[in-house]
């Protein structure tokens, strides 16, 4: 009797599950009509750090830049996911004088700040630039506006007004540079160059950093420190119909594993995928996986002023001992590509992908060079604390061991590392560079010019002169030639840096999230993003 009851129950269960299965597949088989799908919704996203304020002039964190892209606007921006600039707050692209020093700008008319009444005018641009350079202010990204005529005097407090800014009328102005500086327009598209309202900033006083009022597609609705940031659609946004999203709800989730679990749980709509989870997430088929080109180069840098690394034969041996193909495949699989140059391919003036002056893997030649050098002792390199580079460092260490180089790698706490880097005291390091702007100057001048060398210890006068010449050269073809020559000397002749690989950015989204732009500068644009709402 009991067996019969059990059999009946089992049959009923099977029928029920088949019916449920059928109804689910029926749901899947009939997607809603496209006219029924609405673009909107609130995007649930997360940030690893709390920005602790929204004044992008005071902070250089990536999270602050990300939020600035939603809250404020810049004079210029990038077109979609390309590296091409287009006007954002400007009515048209600026006119540049033949000598490359004078830029004439015209603002869009009728651009309103989030309060709906304050209109953007040329004085706001002047105020923004002077606020960044103010010697008594907290502007951190002074490098953006330093090429402007009179910036130095203004920063030193010797001038009360920026000489290189000329207002023509409320919507037109000129910026005059001290000398031609080719990447200047790119500087104006960096989120730290977001335009503030003079009236609103002065009215807010010390409250400004927590109460931002910009012209961006979203405005701040609420902020709970270290917990969440809620943005809502800006009803006064100057581009009609945008943004599509009703808002963005950012939670502060510092742990990557926790964020991934929240994403898989459906409580987050977007998640940066940890490298080791990429295949599993992609294969699950439950999510959209976005892959974006990113402006980065992972490298091995040796401090040339350190006696330990001063012999070019040793640096050459290191360059030839690292099997980059194997390294990138093991660490990043299809997400990575071998680097042949330091400047990321795709940037105007950079080598094309797959070409460049870097040495190929040649362990025999490396062994020969090491034999020539004799006893080189134990070499030292540092790893920046908090960077997820241990796997790569272990692999590099093992590859160097194969050719007879004994490399000891010390993990140094990040603030101590930063301090040592600014003083040029790091012996060698495997690191990465994520470009601020798509220009070779941002890579090569930063590492190999006379100042701020990122501890490269580089001191080749010829290259340093070429770097100064290249940043003032306005002819694109001539600049390209100059940067190729510079890279050839730095990478091939001096072996001051070993470019290893470039990696793509990965982002997983829920299936109903569309329209996110993953820009190569590492900032995701949500102006055109939306959730499909039925």
């Amino acid at each position, binding site marked *: 009797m009991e067996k019969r009851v059990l059999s009946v129950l089992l049959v009923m269960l099977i029928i029920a599950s088949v019916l449920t299965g059928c109804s689910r597949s029926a749901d899947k088989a009939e997607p809603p009509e496209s006219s029924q799908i609405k673009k909107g919704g609130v995007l649930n996203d997360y940030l690893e750090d709390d920005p602790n304020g929204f004044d992008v002039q005071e902070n250089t964190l990536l999270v602050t830049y990300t939020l600035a892209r939603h809250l404020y606007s810049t004079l210029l921006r990038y077109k979609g996911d390309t590296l091409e600039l287009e006007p954002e707050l400007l009515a048209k692209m600026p006119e540049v004088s033949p000598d490359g020093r004078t830029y004439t700008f015209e603002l869009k008319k009728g651009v309103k700040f989030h309060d709906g009444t304050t209109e953007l005018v040329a004085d706001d641009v002047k105020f923004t630039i002077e606020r960044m350079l103010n010697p008594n202010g907290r502007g951190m990204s002074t*490098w953006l506006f330093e090429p402007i005529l009179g910036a130095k005097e203004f920063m030193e407090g010797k001038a009360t007004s920026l000489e290189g800014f000329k207002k023509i009328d409320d919507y037109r102005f000129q910026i005059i540079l001290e000398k031609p500086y080719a990447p200047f327009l790119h500087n104006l598209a960096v989120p730290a160059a977001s335009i503030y309202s003079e009236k609103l900033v002065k009215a807010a006083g010390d409250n400004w950093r927590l109460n931002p009022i910009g012209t961006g597609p979203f405005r701040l609705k609420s902020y709970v420190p270290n917990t969440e940031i809620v943005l809502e659609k800006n009803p006064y946004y100057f581009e009609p119909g945008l943004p599509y999203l009703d808002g963005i709800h950012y939670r502060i989730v510092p742990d990557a594993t926790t964020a991934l679990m929240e994403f898989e749980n459906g*409580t987050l709509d977007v998640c940066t995928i940890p490298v080791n989870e990429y295949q599993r997430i992609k294969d699950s088929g439950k999510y959209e996986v976005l892959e974006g080109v990113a402006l980065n180069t992972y490298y091995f840098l040796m401090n040339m002023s350190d006696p330990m690394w001063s012999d070019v034969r040793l640096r050459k041996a290191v360059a030839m001992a690292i099997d980059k193909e194997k390294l990138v495949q093991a660490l990043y699989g299809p997400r990575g590509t071998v680097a042949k140059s330091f400047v990321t391919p795709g940037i105007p003036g950079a080598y094309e992908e797959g070409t460049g002056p870097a040495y190929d893997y040649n362990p025999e030649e490396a062994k020969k060079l090491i034999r020539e050098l004799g006893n080189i002792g134990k070499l030292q390199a540092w790893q920046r604390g908090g960077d997820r580079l241990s796997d790569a460092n272990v692999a590099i260490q093992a590859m160097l061991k194969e050719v007879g180089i004994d490399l000891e790698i010390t993990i140094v706490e990040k*603030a101590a590392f*930063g*301090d040592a880097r600014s003083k040029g005291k790091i012996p060698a390091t495997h690191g990465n560079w994520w470009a601020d702007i798509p220009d070779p100057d941002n890579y090569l001048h930063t590492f190999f010019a006379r100042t701020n060398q990122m501890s490269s210890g580089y001191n080749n006068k010829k290259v340093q002169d070429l770097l100064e010449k290249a940043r003032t050269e306005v002819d694109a073809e001539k600049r390209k030639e100059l940067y190729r020559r510079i890279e050839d000397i730095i990478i091939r002749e001096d072996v001051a840096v070993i470019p290893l690989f470039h990696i793509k950015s990965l982002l997983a989204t829920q299936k109903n999230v569309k329209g996110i732009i993953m820009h190569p500068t590492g900032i995701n644009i949500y102006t055109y993003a939306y959730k499909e709402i039925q």
Partner: protein
Amino acid sequence: MIDYIIRRLIFAVPVLLGVSLITFILLNVVPGDPVVEMLGKHADPAAVEKIRNQLGLNDPLYIQFGRFLWNACRGDLGKSFKTGQPVTKMILDTFPTTVKLALSSAFVAIVVGLTVGIISAVKQYSFFDHASMIVALAGISAPIFWVAVVGQLIFGLHLKWLPISGYSTPKHIILPAVVLGIRFAASIARYTRSTFLDVIRQDYIRTARAKGLAERAVIFGHALKNALIPVVTVIGMQISGLLTGSILTETIFAIPGLGRLSLWALSNRDFPLVQGIVLFTAVIFVIGNLIVDISYAFLDPRVRLQ
């Protein structure tokens, strides 16, 4: 009693002064410039100098320390280098969250730890005793991040009983409180068992039993209070530790507490914030120790507060 408390508080002044001085020296000795950390990869010398001047970091060290002390005496711990917000406000904003987490996990730990410890002692060498002490050993040994992730996976992602992270409802506090409480419970259980075993072998317990008292009355009326004295010390120290923040738990569960603030302040070399947090932590420990000492007198009348 009041005299004792006042005296203890007066003695706390040199302790707090010493802690502040040591923290100040350490912050200035360890490598890592707060301004370079703020400016990141664009830390050129001119920009570094401008910000250092604004923050008063170019002043002689004794002036910087004197300024900190003078302001601290007036209840002002300065402003955070990184955010420009008053340090006192930043600490007081995060402290209530940490208090909730600490008290919740302490509640879990004390209830579980004391119960398991007492039962294990009373039923020494039983299956329960062996099993609970093995679990307690595992609880002490298991890394907290591992316990946290396993908890998130099981109760958050798969069973969906509890939120994976966050801090918006009381439900959010359950998992982190249990994760944090487990290790604490394990040490309380082992401590309670060992002190309880010592106490129940004492003559006065044998006498109580010989008088014909019920086992319940012997355990709770005579043994428990005496066995609790060393346990209270452990609990007091642990609660003080919990109140000053649990960095790992707060980070994994995205809880905006004092632990996360401490880590953030340290990694950014935010000197005023680090000094403020250390001073605040020292005050918590001083008060915690005082409460523990006072509670001895209540537990054991033989202990007189001198």
